[in-house]
């Protein structure tokens, strides 16, 4: 079953917009997604809670989308909760677990509750954990090494009997690092063997879903967040996988939708779009489970940059099992990331900087800083994030434009190979 008729074409061809290499910020909604959203708005506009025919039609659309998300993750449809996006999914996972613990705490008091996350999470994970700290929780923020990689040993060291849950991302959004989930799974299993129980495990998989096979059951993941608009779906919709048996305290109370965990009339157009996006991702992954197409584009981009532009520094590991296929983070010493982004934008190439350029209060990327990079490296870094929509010619063209732009900025800043410029 597909949510959209085949052969729908977009009105705007991507090439007319420019070379879009900022797919970790958001992606272009696929034409099949747009069609699914349009149909939900135009035809299936009933409330799934209504008893009449329009209501049951909307309910069917909701169920179909839930199945599409579940199939992509290899889980049961009842284990999927639709949210307004990954920020809500992450908040629901973290606060939902924390409140559940508070209202059902074990009779024998184990002391202050403890939770673990990493220093390089997305703000929608870091900020809820900071809030828990303010509310009296002990929180451990695990460090990463120079490549942005987590050492599973650190997790073992941080685990305590009173650890209630942990949250680690699957793929880092700035560097593309794949976190060592198998190793974490192993440590949690060992803990389970020793103590007969283990903390619950949430994974923010926003940058992994659709790019890598993401099957939470294979890794013993209890909760997993994903976002529609990072995988060619619409904005304003996401989902949280909650393993059967895991209890969450709801954040939004009301009509009891989504099994009472997330009240509010379902965003059927968004959910239909997310369902279509998941079906699309499933087809793409079936054809290329290793992400070879993306990886080839990414490696071509890096090879061209490395060959033609002196002094560049790539951040993050390069081994295929440690780096997502679609993200490349590079410093161009002698430039400033923000200026480079605007220059490239003028030339029709869209990329991102991890750090904001502030005159008074520099706010460098917390991820690159946690990796121990110098302010200079952080300030001159650019993130390229690709999609299966990108073509090899685009990559070649982007690299050529990049070379010219970097050369022009460096001429102005007087950068010479081997000389560090403190901008």
């Amino acid at each position, binding site marked *: 079953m597909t949510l959209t008729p085949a052969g729908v074409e977009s009105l705007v061809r991507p090439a007319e917009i420019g070379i879009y290499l900022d797919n970790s910020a958001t992606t272009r909604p696929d034409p099949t997604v747009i069609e699914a959203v349009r149909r939900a708005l135009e035809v299936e506009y009933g409330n799934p809670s209504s008893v009449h025919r329009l209501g049951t039609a909307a309910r069917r659309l909701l169920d179909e989308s839930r199945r599409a998300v579940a199939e992509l993750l290899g889980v049961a449809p009842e284990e999927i909760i639709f949210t307004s996006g990954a920020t809500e999914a992450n908040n629901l996972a973290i606060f939902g677990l924390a409140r559940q613990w508070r209202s059902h705490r074990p009779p024998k008091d184990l002391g202050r509750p403890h939770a673990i996350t990493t220093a390089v999470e997305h703000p929608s994970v870091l900020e809820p954990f900071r809030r828990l700290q303010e509310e009296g929780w002990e929180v451990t923020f695990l460090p990463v090494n120079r490549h942005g990689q987590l050492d599973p040993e650190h997790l073992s060291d941080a685990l305590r009997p009173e650890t209630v849950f942990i949250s680690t991302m699957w793929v880092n959004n700035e560097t593309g690092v794949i976190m060592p989930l198998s190793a974490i799974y192993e440590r949690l299993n060992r803990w389970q063997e020793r103590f007969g129980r283990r903390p619950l495990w949430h994974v923010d998989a926003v940058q992994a879903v659709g790019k890598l096979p993401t099957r939470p059951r294979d890794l013993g993941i209890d909760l997993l967040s994903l976002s529609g608009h990072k995988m060619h779906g619409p904005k304003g919709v996401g989902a949280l996988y909650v393993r059967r048996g895991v209890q969450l305290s709801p954040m939004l109370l009301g009509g009891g939708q989504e099994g009472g965990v997330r009240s509010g009339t379902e965003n059927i157009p968004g959910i239909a779009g997310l369902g279509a996006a998941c079906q699309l991702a499933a087809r793409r992954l079936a054809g290329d489970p290793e992400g070879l197409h993306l990886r080839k584009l990414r490696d071509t981009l890096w090879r061209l940059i490395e060959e033609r532009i002196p002094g560049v520094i790539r951040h993050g590991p390069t081994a295929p099992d440690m780096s997502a296929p679609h993200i490349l983070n590079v410093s161009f010493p002698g430039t*400033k990331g923000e200026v480079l982004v*605007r220059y490239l934008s*003028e030339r029709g190439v869209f990329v991102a900087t991890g750090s904001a*350029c502030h*005159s008074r209060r520099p706010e460098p990327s917390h991820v690159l800083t946690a990796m121990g990079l110098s302010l200079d490296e952080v300030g001159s870094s650019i993130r390229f994030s690709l999609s299966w929509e990108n073509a090899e010619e685009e990559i070649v063209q982007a690299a050529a434009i990049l070379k010219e732009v970097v050369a022009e900025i460096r001429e*102005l800043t007087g950068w010479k190979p081997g000389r560090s410029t403190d901008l």
Partner: protein
Amino acid sequence: MLFNSILVRYGEIALKGKNRPEFEGQLKRQVQQALDMANVPVDQVERAYGRIVVDLGTAPPDALARAVQAMSRVFGIVSFSPAVRLPVELENPLEGVAEAAWALVQEEIGMGSPGSLAGRRPRSFKVDARRAYKRFPMSSLEINRELGAALLRRGIGLPVEVHNPDLTVSVEVRQEGIYVSTREYPGPGGLPYGVTGKAVLLLSGGIDSPVAGWMSMRRGIEVVGLHFHSYPFTSEEALRKAEDLGRVLARWAGGKFRLRVCHFTEVQKAIQRHVPEELRITIMRRMMFRIAERIAAQEEALALITGENVAQVASQTLESLGVIEAVTQMPVLRPLAMFDKMETIAKAKEIGTYEISIRPYEDCCTIFTPVHPKTRPRLAEAEAAEEALAASVDIEQLLAAAVDSTASTELEPLPE
């Protein structure tokens, strides 16, 4: 509404001799305009000798607060008072006045209302009468005494304190009417906007230049902003910041502020390529002044205004100021020249530009900021550097292109 008029006092204009009728006319128009913009319905604005009187007629009750805010932004006003206007009665001259004064006093005492008395219940009072209409049968002193006694009889319950009372009941007897008021709000002072002539303000996104612009406007100068934009080295947000600052200044300029935006990137690149690092800021400022002078000519403006402040940064030492200003024949006005930074910040907060100025976007990319700029450049050095620059680029062409690129936007006030 208790009040039916606003009595406007102005100071300096009265000293301006031959220009006085023109200045008064301008002020009257600007009062009218400010009230229109604030949606205060006004029956008429009249010029009475030495005063401007706003007749509010049947304005809705909430109009007064808006009128007070609007009037506090009309340059030239020294102070103003919401007042009850009564017809002049020559028989039983104080009867109606006592009635109106008592109603006002009851508001002030009863409510402990916020405003001129800072929400505190007054503990003393006096009557302060002025008789401009000499056919009125009582002298100022008589009015003071009799109206004071009448208020005491009605039960004001406060002692009279002539030197420093908490509550002053003011009575102005004029031919066209008697005005009774209990509050006096300060105006911004200065001269009516635009009566002095026009000038071009070099408006960055920083704290200083908008304050310099505001102070110039208060001297009656019509200000046109000029912002130098170096996209892609500076961001759209930096431009937006300059625009928002202009939109704050528009609140004092009759609701309009013209901003000229010069695309400065090519000039900046040429300087970066061909001028020694330590002189780049000096030469950049000289180029900005040259462009500003040409924009001023287009605008028929008579002066340049900057937010420069003596010795604040390298380009503002006495040596730098001299070398920079040497490129223009125009007067360069620097209202903040001798200000302390804290005074500038306080002023910026007061006029509402501070929060915009501290938004974290650079107005001049740090790529172009040398580590060690020369603090005491000499004119000969700057001229030599420009000669060397001229060997590589056509400076005249560069400046002409920058002037040509200078767009013009009419900004409307930022909503509050």
